[in-house]
């Protein structure tokens, strides 16, 4: 259960992570802007204050020089009464005596923006302006900016979450589909496309294609396994029956001998079938070791035909070979002979007495062509695509003994060599 839970939660975490990244970038960007704005505002406010007090300082220094402290005091008093904001003014006489001309009540000297001017006679004139208003303004500004930042963060997080949710939707559907398949083992589930045609849609399509392929393989394997089980059961049941009958009857050496011989023959049939099946799956999976060499196809065909000459003769079937001498292929000689022999076997087996089997070898461009034709009953169109399937036996072939593995083996060997097999047929009157 824990792994199921984990699988369900992981896309959510993934979404959250992306949303957080998105929000972080957003917040870092907006914080930088906020800080810059704050800094610029604070500096320009301080500069304006400095300009004001420096202007006043110039005026006051001039007044002092005109008539000393008295004139300055009069000027300051006259100005301060009209001014909306009172300034701090003092004169320090050569570092000895400080005369404070204006010190508005409740002003904290530490919260002053001060400008000083030293006159020619060594007198120091200072003008100060309270920073209280400015600080208050900036504090309000800071609060507003903080609120804005929080808002931006919230918007970024929500936006990021929504964006990633909609982007992760197809991924989540894909993930759910995979989970369903893992849980149920059914490969017929498909992930719905959202029709946007984007990369995720493409991934979904690929995933569905992969499922199709897996489903096809699983179905084919299941079918093959069913067929094999069925085809193994019959000879094994006979085997058991024979042995059982021998044991149940009276003890007699001749009967035992007969029963054992039956058993050996039956076992051989099973072994032949199993060997062929293993050869086929080895060739299909690419595990079949191929000793590749230059092989003259005419030789291969000659040896295979030689093997079946007597069988064809005995049956009254003419075996005709027409092979170009110079057609060569790089192939495993034994496997190729096996394939050719199986084709001829099939042709001879299903050709009635008086018929004819043609084996032809010729070059076809870059490729080599081996064709076996017979005058047998032919294969109906609906059976043609299946004749290379494992253990498939056409309705008309059931009268003959056979496993339904010969042509599958031919196909597997030829395809392991990188070749192709094909069938063409006109069902005859038979």
């Amino acid at each position, binding site marked *: 259960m824990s792994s199921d839970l984990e699988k369900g939660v992981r896309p959510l975490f993934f979404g959250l992570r992306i949303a957080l990244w998105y929000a972080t970038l957003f917040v870092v960007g907006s914080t930088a802007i906020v800080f810059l704005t704050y800094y610029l505002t604070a500096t320009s406010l301080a500069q304006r204050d400095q300009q004001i007090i420096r202007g006043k300082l110039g005026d006051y220094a001039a007044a002092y020089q005109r008539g000393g402290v008295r004139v300055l005091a009069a000027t300051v008093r006259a100005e301060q009464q009209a001014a909306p904001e009172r300034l701090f003014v003092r004169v320090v006489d050569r570092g000895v005596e400080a005369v404070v001309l204006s010190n508005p009540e409740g002003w904290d000297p530490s919260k002053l923006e001060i400008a000083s001017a030293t006159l020619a006679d060594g007198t120091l004139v200072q003008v100060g302006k309270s920073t209280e208003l400015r600080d208050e303004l900036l504090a309000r500004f800071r609060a507003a900016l903080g609120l804005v930042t929080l808002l931006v963060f919230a918007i970024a997080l929500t936006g990021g979450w929504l964006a990633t949710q909609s982007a992760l939707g197809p991924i989540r559907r894909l993930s759910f589909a995979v989970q369903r398949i893992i849980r149920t083992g059914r490969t017929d589930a498909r992930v719905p496309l959202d029709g946007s045609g984007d990369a995720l849609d493409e991934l979904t399509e690929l995933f569905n294609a992969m499922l199709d392929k897996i489903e096809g393989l699983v179905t084919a394997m299941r079918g093959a396994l069913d067929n094999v089980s069925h085809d193994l059961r019959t000879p094994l049941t006979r085997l058991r029956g024979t042995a059982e009958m021998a044991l149940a009857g009276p003890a007699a050496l001749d009967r035992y*001998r*007969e029963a*054992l*011989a*039956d*058993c*050996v*023959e039956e076992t*051989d049939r099973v*072994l*032949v079938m199993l*060997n*062929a099946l293993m*050869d086929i799956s080895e060739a299909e999976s690419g595990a079949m070791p191929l000793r590749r060499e230059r092989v003259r196809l005419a030789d291969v065909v000659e*040896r295979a035909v*030689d*093997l*079946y000459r*007597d*069988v064809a*003769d*005995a049956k009254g079937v003419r075996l005709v070979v027409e092979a170009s001498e110079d057609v060569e292929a790089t192939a495993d000689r*034994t496997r190729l*002979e*096996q394939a050719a*022999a*199986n084709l001829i*076997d*099939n042709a*001879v*087996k299903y050709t009635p007495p008086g018929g004819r089997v043609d084996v032809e070898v010729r070059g076809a461009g870059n490729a080599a062509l081996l064709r076996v034709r017979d005058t047998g009953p032919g294969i109906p169109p609906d059976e043609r695509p299946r004749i290379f399937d494992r253990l498939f036996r056409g309705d008309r072939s059931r009268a003959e003994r*056979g*496993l339904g*593995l*010969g042509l599958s083996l031919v196909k597997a060997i030829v395809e392991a060599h990188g070749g192709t097999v094909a069938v063409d047929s006109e069902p005859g009157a038979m």
Partner: protein
Amino acid sequence: MRNAGKVVSKTMILSHVWEYNFDPQTNIVDVLVSRLREKIDRPFEKKLLHTVRGVGYVLRP
């Protein structure tokens, strides 16, 4: 005549005569042996080629 008196299996015959190391679907060896039998045994009273069922064939005077 190397194996005279010994039972040889169909697989042995296949691999010795044709150097084939796989199972043919049709019973090629049976056909071959029956044709051989027609030639060497049928005209005579005394049979040489015997079938050992389930195992193979033996050449025995």
